[in-house]
């Protein structure tokens, strides 16, 4: 675990020292601030649209940070040749992948903490309510979802050589699942066999990222999610994360590094 944590720390340090996060954070602050300053029928107490915009920006930023940070890890190690001195040390390929995953996940989690603090401030300043537990649940589920995204992007970075193509494909897959995931079964019911069975299989196999998107609950003050459901969702994310990491390890463990 020491080795894995050492590798993760470098990834975290990289995110802290690069400008990506700051650009996205400032952009979120600016856009939320602009949206908040719009005069809507002279009513300053309208807040849900602001929560919606802020959360949308946070979700977009979260995906961008997670995917770009993960997609560049292994290609950059290869391009700069740092993978050679690293794997020439007593580091297994599994530890290498786990370290990269953990680093990206922790770095994204740190970014999420700041983003949700901003969200809490924006929402609280207009709404004068501080549903901390609800925000905690939302941030936690968001982080779990990004864990799945990071794991499959890591797998993608072994399959696809170019970080740009991996990033684009991963982003398209994540966005596709978030937007269409929960409708696949309904689409399946409306088509003929064998496409129906195919779609239904995909519906059950693919990770349902949209489960972790509880923005509507937050925006409309719908109350806390049952904690046992949050636990189940966490286990669901852990299972998919482990599945993709295992796939990445299978693809990477015997791959020649030359």
């Amino acid at each position, binding site marked *: 675990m020491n080795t894995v944590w050492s590798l993760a720390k470098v990834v975290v340090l990289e995110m802290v020292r690069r400008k990506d996060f700051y650009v996205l954070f400032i952009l979120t602050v600016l856009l939320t601030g602009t949206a908040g300053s719009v005069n809507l029928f002279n009513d300053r107490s309208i807040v849900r649209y602001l929560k919606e915009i802020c959360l949308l920006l946070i979700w977009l930023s979260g995906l961008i940070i997670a995917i770009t940070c993960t997609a560049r890890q292994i290609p950059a190690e290869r391009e700069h040749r740092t993978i050679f001195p690293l794997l020439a040390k007593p580091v297994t390929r599994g530890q290498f992948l786990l370290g990269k995953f953990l680093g990206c996940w922790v770095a994204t989690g740190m970014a999420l903490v700041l983003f949700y603090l901003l969200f809490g401030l924006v929402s609280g300043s207009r709404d004068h309510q501080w549903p901390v537990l609800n925000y905690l649940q939302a941030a936690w589920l968001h982080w779990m979802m990004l864990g799945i995204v990071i794991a499959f992007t890591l797998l993608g970075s072994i399959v696809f050589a170019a970080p740009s193509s991996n990033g684009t494909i991963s982003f398209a897959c994540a966005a596709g699942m978030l937007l269409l995931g929960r409708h696949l079964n309904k689409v399946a019911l409306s088509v003929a066999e064998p496409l129906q069975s195919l779609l239904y299989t995909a519906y059950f196999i693919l990770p349902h990222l949209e489960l972790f998107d509880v923005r509507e609950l937050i925006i409309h003050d719908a109350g806390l999610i049952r904690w046992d459901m949050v636990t189940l969702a966490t286990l669901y994310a852990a299972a998919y994360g482990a599945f993709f990491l295992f796939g990445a390890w299978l693809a990477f463990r015997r791959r*020649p590094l030359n």
Partner: protein
Amino acid sequence: MDATLSIEKLRVEYRSRDLGEATKVAVDGLSLHVGQGEVFGFLGPNGAGKTSTMNVLLGFVPPASGTAHIFGVDVIEPIARQRIGYLPEQTYYYKFLTAEELLRFYAGIFRIPKAETERRIDAVLKLVELDHARKRQIKTYSKGMQQRAGLAQALINNPDLLILDEPTSGLDPIGRMKVREIIQRLKGEGKTVFFSSHELGEVETVCDRVAILHQGQLKTEGRVSDLVREHSANLEQIFLKLIGYSPQP
């Protein structure tokens, strides 16, 4: 003398992804033994199979056949790399880290205790003369400084075997001299050094023994002085003769 590094009938192949293209044999039937405390020069023209051999020793590439052991442990086991230091050719280390942070990261991988880590960081940075730039990010380093940072990372675990791939490649004469001095100092400390190079003069100066590889096959191996006496020529002439180079009239 105990063999720190031993290679037996090693064969390395690269399968082409293009249809119809034959498998390329990078190393064919190579056997080598390097004893403890030796400085061993691994010579050959580009494409001779030097880096491929090193890649097997470091576990980057699986051998098609044959075996390789470091301190008696099969190189496919990660533990075989606990006591080695490796300096790859032209590596651009994590540019957002300082030299100190880079070394702390690698020390973490070796699970070196904190106090010992700080002591070793001080020692290796002094050795490679980067002490003055230890708190600067690597992106601000010159090429020579980066190469010395690489050497420092290879030494952080106080390795018994150093594998250096073209350690002086791309360095100016002063940089080369410094690297040579470091190798001499390590030799003085009883470390085993296995390094590849094109710089035959440099090899002649620092190596106890050399091996010349051409088209994946071992052409000769022995002490530099023995080879010079045997062929009645200097190392460069021997090298050129063995790889079949004949100068144009």
